């Protein structure tokens, strides 16, 4: 079927927790979103076939659209459309494979083993175990461990370039003997990344080449004193996307239904982010927060970067967000006190029953607090990975092997950021759009003037894959139905020494000539109404210790865009701290939430 004949498109995104389906139709010669349906992703027993979740979500779509899309037995999609039944095109993305758990190995546990661990952690993986020649375990114990843990990927490192090869080959032999299987079973090969002594590459190929999906990259520890983690990190991210994340039980079955290859969700969302950046000529940071993973994208200096934080998310990974961020960091955003024991149970129960949704307001607040921390941690990881096209080698001595230091300068500069884009269930489906704006601001702490937007109903993944086959339809829906303009955040840098002291004066001149003037004080959030589609000129006079981008105390002039929330003055400082006294903290957080009318009854 030619593109011009296509009038009805079905697109799905299989997340780790929820499968989302959208129906797009050409009406009056324009492609528009018609309806959206969703259903729990079916990667667990008894179904264990991601296709069932897709069919359930499509079933909801056909109920809402009031027309038949599935065959009478409900097991396939009618294609092409005939007598008002079915669709012309079906495409899908997937991130149903969930998180990334790795085993790493190095010859010496405290040398290459440590470097390999750092590389894996920096790439967003959970390190399940470190195998080393000198870890005190016998070969069969190592083999049993590999088999039991079922890692998603193994990173094999060890030996300096030009040094002895025998130890790292022995480690490869152990991996080969374990004959590790991919987590999702038959039909998949386990990815093993070799980043050790370059002189041993051919022996490694001989040992592992036929048993696993072997990939080879530069030695992460080319000499005792130097560490080169970036190629390994980039490769891990790539292998994760290709081999783990998009796969799921029943994946081959789903492939039979789609008209195009199933695309990994971050790839599809990343394409959309790049499209926005290119079309609007903006620097962009975007985030897609899912159940198991959080993906962050950025375009700075024309360079696109993507990172997948494989174990930060709102359902399967929520317990990991809690463990990594810590109780205090989660609770600092919650405007009431909570029993720790009760909170821990709630978080773990969300992990084991991932599709539940917050009924109580207080539960919504806790989930949104977790989302802030998941986004913050993922953004930290993104910054460390977004260092341009080439990683910079870090000289490392034996003395500082335990120190974790950044390799290379990040490209992400918040002062240069024009637009922050949010996507994912917790952002797209927040009951109030103010909540989305607040989560984005608190997690990313934008500086200067930053426009805030959100994916209206969480459909960027589907539009990303659709753009590959039908760009016109994808762009049409994107422009008209996808991006919601929340408003603009104005945030000077500088530390607030005393709450309530003036931080800036502003003069806002709207398109209709209305002029608004005001002063904003430290430690506060203030909202000025500026509707969707409105732009205004703003002149800001920051006080002595505050900087809007032209230097401390220097006047700043710029343009701000309206949105459903409006213009948000965030003068809490960059960075800002919370009061140590809990009652004071609660009072302060409540005042912020009240300023944005975030929750009812505050």
């Amino acid at each position, binding site marked *: 079927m030619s593109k011009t004949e296509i009038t009805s498109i079905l697109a799905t995104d299989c997340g780790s927790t929820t499968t989302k389906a959208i129906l797009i139709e050409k009406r009056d010669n324009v492609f528009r979103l018609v309806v959206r349906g969703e259903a729990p992703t079916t990667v667990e027993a008894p179904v264990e076939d991601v296709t069932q979740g897709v069919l359930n979500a499509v079933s909801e779509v056909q109920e809402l659209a009031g027309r038949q899309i599935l065959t009478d037995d409900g097991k396939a999609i009618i294609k092409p459309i005939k007598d008002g039944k079915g669709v012309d095109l079906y495409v899908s993305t997937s991130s149903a494979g969930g998180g990334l758990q790795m085993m790493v190995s190095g010859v010496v546990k405290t040398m290459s083993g440590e470097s390999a661990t750092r590389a894996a952690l920096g790439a967003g993986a959970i390190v399940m175990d470190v195998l080393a020649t000198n870890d005190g375990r016998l*070969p069969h114990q190592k083999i049993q461990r590999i088999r*039991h843990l079922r890692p998603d990927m193994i990173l094999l490192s060890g030996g300096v370039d030009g040094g002895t090869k025998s130890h790292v080959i022995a480690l490869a032999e152990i991996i080969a003997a374990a004959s590790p299987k991919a987590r999702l079973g038959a039909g998949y090969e386990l990815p093993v990344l070799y980043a050790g002594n370059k002189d041993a590459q051919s022996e490694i190929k001989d040992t592992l080449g036929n048993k696993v999906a072997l990939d080879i990259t530069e030695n992460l520890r080319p000499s005792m004193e130097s560490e080169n983690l970036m190629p390994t990190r980039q490769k891990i991210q790539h292998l994760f996307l290709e081999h783990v994340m998009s796969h799921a039980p029943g994946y081959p079955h789903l492939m039979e239904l789609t008209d195009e290859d199933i695309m990994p969700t971050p790839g599809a969302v990343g394409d959309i982010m790049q499209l926005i950046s290119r079309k609007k000529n903006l620097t962009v940071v975007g985030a897609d927060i899912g159940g198991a993973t959080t993906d962050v994208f950025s375009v700075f200096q024309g360079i696109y970067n993507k990172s997948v934080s494989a174990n930060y998310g709102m359902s399967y990974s929520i317990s990991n967000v809690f463990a990594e961020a810590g109780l205090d960091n989660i609770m600092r955003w919650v405007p009431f006190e909570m029993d720790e024991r009760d909170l821990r149970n709630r978080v773990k129960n969300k992990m*084991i*029953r991932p599709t539940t949704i917050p009924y109580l307001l207080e539960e919504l607040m806790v989930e949104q607090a977790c989302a802030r921390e998941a986004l913050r941690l993922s953004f930290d990881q993104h910054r460390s990975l977004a260092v341009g096209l080439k990683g910079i080698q870090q000289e490392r001595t034996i003395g500082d092997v335990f120190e974790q230091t950044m390799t290379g300068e990040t490209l992400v500069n918040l002062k240069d950021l024009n637009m922050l884009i949010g996507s994912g269930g917790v952002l797209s489906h927040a009951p109030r759009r103010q909540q989305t704006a607040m989560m984005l601001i608190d997690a990313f702490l934008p500086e200067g003037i930053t426009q805030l937007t959100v994916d209206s109903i969480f459909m960027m993944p589907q539009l990303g894959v659709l753009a590959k086959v039908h760009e016109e339809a994808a762009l049409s829906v994107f422009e008209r139905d996808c991006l919601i303009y929340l408003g603009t955040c104005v945030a000077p840098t500088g530390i607030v020494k005393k709450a309530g002291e003036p931080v800036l004066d502003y003069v806002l001149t709207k398109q209709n000539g209305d002029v608004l003037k005001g002063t904003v004080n430290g430690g506060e959030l203030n909202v000025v109404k500026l509707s969707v589609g409105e732009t205004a000129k703003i002149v800001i006079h920051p006080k002595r210790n505050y900087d809007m981008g032209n230097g401390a105390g220097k006047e700043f002039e710029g343009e701000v865009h309206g949105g459903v929330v409006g213009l948000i003055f965030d003068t809490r400082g960059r960075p800002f701290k919370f009061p140590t006294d809990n009652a004071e903290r609660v009072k302060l957080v409540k005042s912020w939430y009240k300023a944005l009318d975030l929750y009812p009854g505050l």
Partner: protein
Amino acid sequence: MASAYTPGLKIVSKTLVEKDRKLPLLGEVRVKKGDKVKAESVVASTNLPGNVFMVNIANLLSVEPHEINDFLKKKEGDFVEKDDIIAETNGFFGFFKSCVRSPIKGSIENLSTATGQAVLREPPIPVEVHAYVDGEIDDIYPKEGVKIKTTATYIQGIFGIGGEVTGLLEMVSQSPDAVLEKDDIKPVHAGKIIVGGSLVTAEALQRAIEVGVRGVIVGGYDAHDLKEFLGYDLGVAITGTEEKGITLVVTEGFGKIQMAHKTYELLKAAEGMKTSINGATQIRAGVIRPEVIIPLKVEGHEEQVHKGNNGMLVGTSVRIIRQPHFGEVAKVVNLPEKPVIIESEAKVRVVDIETTSGLKLTLPRANVEIIEE
């Protein structure tokens, strides 16, 4: 669409359970197809070469390497006990002797007159794979292991810690909502797998370890106690290798949650029977759940079909799986078609239910799970 989330846990009174039991390295299969085995039976084994120790005899005796043959008391291939004399000088009229003793129990693998060194090797390390469940050998994987089949009551838990253990099953809590307390656990429970109700307290779990209980099956466990017990905050739920001296299988979730009636009754019916449990859990795509296997003494294998989730209907029994009223059991009263705005202001599809205590509630459909009866 009246669907509801169910974690899909398999809870059946009689089913065919098949288990692959494989060696980590190639070895010898010790049973044959059709053999009846006990959980403790070794079904396959192999020997790993023992560790090697080097002893420099020449240095220790202050002689030249080529001279060591004159002082050796053992020869290549001899077995030695720890501290056995390997080599000894004659001394001066029987006095002032120097000797070299074996640092290990093992054998003399090599004696070198070039280096003056002895290579000693510890005895082979046996690696054995046990059957884990009472059953019958269904298939042989040559040099690797076996497949065992057994007809059993099979219960999947939702979360667990610790590996495979076997013992006789004993109901300690007398109802599915009773809390398993420290004082409930007696020395008589040593070597057994005990069943609690809605919660096992941290003190009770500690006491169970002290008296030698092998495993605990219980409805709920406190996440805070889990953190204290493990010594770290479990981020990603991948468990099974913890060596805490006990295996725990949690059937319902975190906190105090009454064990599902069906689960409790199945366990009660099997009291006194030999039971195998494994706490290993991996909550992610390709999930692994903890399990309870109670082999039944019946001939043949009658498969009981696991009923899938056919959706909620009026009258369906459900359990609330999120606050408020978490853990309570209810019946579906109505399934409104249109989405409803709930307290958190989210607009969702809901279900009207009535709890066993008569409370009428409207909750998100996603927040209840169907109880299979």
